[in-house]
């Protein structure tokens, strides 16, 4: 089932940009305090946000740590939109293109745990955090702050960020629930790093009470959280269920309160009927996934350096058939920025000339191949990893079949996940590669796939005009203007057919109906989304 533009807007909505930094709180008239929220938890490798790229660490820390900015959350927020608001910062000023000054909230207290013991958070803590983030060896997320030159604590509540060049995505990075939470210097000093559960001391709405690796993680309410009255839920438990069948059973039987699949408390599409029948009161929220699977091509080598071949490849694919087989409950068509990121993805019907390469046309594909000197077709390879997903295996098999239909013989190299990650994911392959891409919340991560030198540039794109367009958009601070630039970039990319993008499935978030003021969304901010939620039971 394809979704129309109207459907997509209804699912995701368009974001409203703004700089208001007041934290959003529950709007319900009579929120009740108390109760426990149980969800499918994740055992992190450790808890130091500066020493891992693992989302499991970030999900756990989203309950315990604050950031300068955060994404708005709640049932009124359209999934797929990431408008930022103040978290630990109550105000910021933008002095020039490279200087941001943040005014911190007063009275923000660290968790009452040694060695920090609930002291007030200050600008010095923010400076310390970003210094550590930039200088610690082995920080896989350092590139997020690549434009940051220095951070100064001006006074107890004021922090100045100086960038080396204008970076339009800087505030998006700060609000991203990935690695940029504020940490306590005393915890690092006492424990050497922040890996141990005892070192999990933040300013967030919940405090880590206990962590049993591969079993469960428990958080309890932070009594001095700076937003008065929040959080409403006293206790949060993350149960680590490694097996998908066990996770489904846990949700059906009410052992957990929300859908168990990553990232937004979802269920799998093929479990929908079972869940609907066995837990009929479940509240479902549908929204497009930002996981986009694509086929990369060695555009730096023949035959894929010929745009006619790339167009033929795209026209050979019947994406609708692949979607029908792999995501029967609905998909969205992806422009170069996934449709799920509704604020930045160009509406598909405005993609221009490039849109036509999304529709199957084997006859035209054969004609283009003949024109490119491949009238008898050619042979190539496709590297991929299964990711443990039958849907992905099916999609690969169907793609190979469609290519064969126009005369392209594809030999599939199935690789173990780690080997795939070390090779094809980084552009080390011969002909084609296929796989899902990192589900980022901002468009830059997707546009970086077209920049020479970027590890995500799997198709080896080297298009100077496109590079300029992408870099320019990163320097354009006016959001409206930047959005227009990002749309133009997507039109250009679509015409050049650097990657063959598949459609993304629709997520089904599944929630206990008694959970109020909770809105699911993409991304790792589980704690941020739960902060104002409460139980009506």
């Amino acid at each position, binding site marked *: 089932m394809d979704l129309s533009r109207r459907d997509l807007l209804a699912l995701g909505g368009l974001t409203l940009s703004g700089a208001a930094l007041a934290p959003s709180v529950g709007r319900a008239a009579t929120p009740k305090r108390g109760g426990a929220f149980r969800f499918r938890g994740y055992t992190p*490798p450790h808890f130091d946000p500066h020493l891992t*790229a693992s989302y499991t660490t970030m999900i756990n820390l989203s309950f315990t740590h604050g950031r300068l900015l955060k994404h708005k959350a709640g049932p009124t927020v359209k999934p797929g939109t990431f408008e930022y608001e103040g978290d630990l910062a109550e105000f910021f000023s933008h002095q020039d293109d490279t200087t941001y000054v943040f005014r911190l909230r007063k009275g923000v207290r660290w968790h009452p745990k040694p060695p920090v013991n609930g002291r007030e958070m200050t600008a010095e803590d923010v400076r310390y955090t970003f210094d550590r983030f930039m200088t610690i*060896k082995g920080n896989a997320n350092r590139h997020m702050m690549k434009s940051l030159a220095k951070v100064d604590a001006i006074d107890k509540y004021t922090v100045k960020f100086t960038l080396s060049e204008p970076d339009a995505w800087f505030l998006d990075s700060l609000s991203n629930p990935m690695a940029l939470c504020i940490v306590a210097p005393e915890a690092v000093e006492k424990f050497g790093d922040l*890996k141990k559960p005892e070192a999990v001391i933040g300013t967030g709405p919940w405090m880590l009470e206990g962590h049993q690796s591969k079993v469960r993680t428990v958080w309890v309410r932070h009594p001095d959280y700076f937003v008065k009255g929040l959080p409403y839920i006293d206790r949060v438990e993350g149960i680590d269920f490694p097996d998908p*069948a066990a996770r489904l059973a*846990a949700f059906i039987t009410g052992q957990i309160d929300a859908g168990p699949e990553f990232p937004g408390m979802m269920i799998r599409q093929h479990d929908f009927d079972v869940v609907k029948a066995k837990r009929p009161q479940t509240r479902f929220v549908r929204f497009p996934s930002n996981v986009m699977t694509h086929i990369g091509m060695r555009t730096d080598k023949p035959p894929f350096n010929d745009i006619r071949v790339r167009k033929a490849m795209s026209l050979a694919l019947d994406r609708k058939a692949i979607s029908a087989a792999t995501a029967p409950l609905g998909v969205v068509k992806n422009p170069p920025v996934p449709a799920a990121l509704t604020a930045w993805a160009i509406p598909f019907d405005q993609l221009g000339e490039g849109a036509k390469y999304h529709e199957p046309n084997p006859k035209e594909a054969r004609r283009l191949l003949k024109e490119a000197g491949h009238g008898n077709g050619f042979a190539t390879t496709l590297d991929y990893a299964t990711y443990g997903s039958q849907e992905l295996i099916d999609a690969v098999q169907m793609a190979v079949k469609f290519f064969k239909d126009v005369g392209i013989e594809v030999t599939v190299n199935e690789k173990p996940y*780690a080997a795939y990650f*070390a090779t094809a*994911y980084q552009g080390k392959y011969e002909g084609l590669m296929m796989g899902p891409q990192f589900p980022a919340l901002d468009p830059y991560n997707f546009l970086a796939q077209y920049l020479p030198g970027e590890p995500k540039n799997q198709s080896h794109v080297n298009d100077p005009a496109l590079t300029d367009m992408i870099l320019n958009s990163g320097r354009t601070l006016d959001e409206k203007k930047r959005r227009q630039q990002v749309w133009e970039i997507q039109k250009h990319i679509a015409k050049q057919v650097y990657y063959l993008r598949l459609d993304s499935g629709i997520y089904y978030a599944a929630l206990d109906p008694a959970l109020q003021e909770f809105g699911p969304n993409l991304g790792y901010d589980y704690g941020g989304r739960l902060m104002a939620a409460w139980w009506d039971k």
Partner: protein
Amino acid sequence: MLRKYALKRLLVAVPSLLIASVIVFSLARLIPGDVVTLMMEENQYAQDLDEMRAKLGLDRPIYAQYVEWMGRIARGDLGQSLYTGKPVLRELAWRLPVSLELGAVALVFAVLIGIPIGVVAAVRQDTLRDYVARSGAILGLSVPGFWLGTLVVVLPAIYFGWSPPIEFTRLDDDPWRHVAQFLLPGFLLGVASAASIMRLTRTQLLEVLRQDYVRTAWSKGLAEPRVVLKHSLKNALIPVVTVLGIQIAQILSGTVIFESIFGLPGMGRFLFDAITERDYPVIQGINLVIVGTIVMVNLVVDVAYAWLDPRIRY
């Protein structure tokens, strides 16, 4: 004589363990994909990768890493997880008991199911009971454990709104719940082993029942239970004891699947995650423990075999 034999077997175990250490160390590194690549996920910036490899000591020659690892082993240190930074030995110390509990429960079920059914099948050879027992054994051997485990968890949830315990409970939190959570996975894990044990028990007992001394026992007018259980079964069980050693290895490998399905934080799941993450010290440490356990179990089995059957001397 028995002591000398046991000592000889112990000496043979030492080179076995040394060879195993080389295999365990090198095989982990032969799996395609690099631990640092996986750690950095999609942020594959070359400088960061090199920095991380140096930090973890993975930029040194492999023989240097092996020598250092063996030095640590000699001091009773299995190293630290590359991912968590936690000592492998400490991690194993609380995971190993979970796997051992599961393995022990499985072994108990395997023996309790396998031997009695094997005896009945032998004593009632070519009757309906024998056919049913043998068919059951074939089924037990052929049904994949992961499929059975998944069905046991999912079907009751769908049809009765109930599922067996899939959330781990520690012994000190709730002793009864702790024991109960091992029963179902232990039973399922024991079924395949029970099938092997049943078939072997049946075959061996049939052979013993045809021996002259058993015929003599029958002719003396002894009751069937006495002939079968006292005079025949002990001798028939000697090869079964050997197979039990092999079954322990099989059960240990089977824990990987059942620990994942039933949410048990044991060694099998730890190993599975470590292989996925290419966490070399953990893979090496667990495998060394498994190899060591199997070598020791085989040693005990060999000695027990010699003790049970005085004719055996190598």
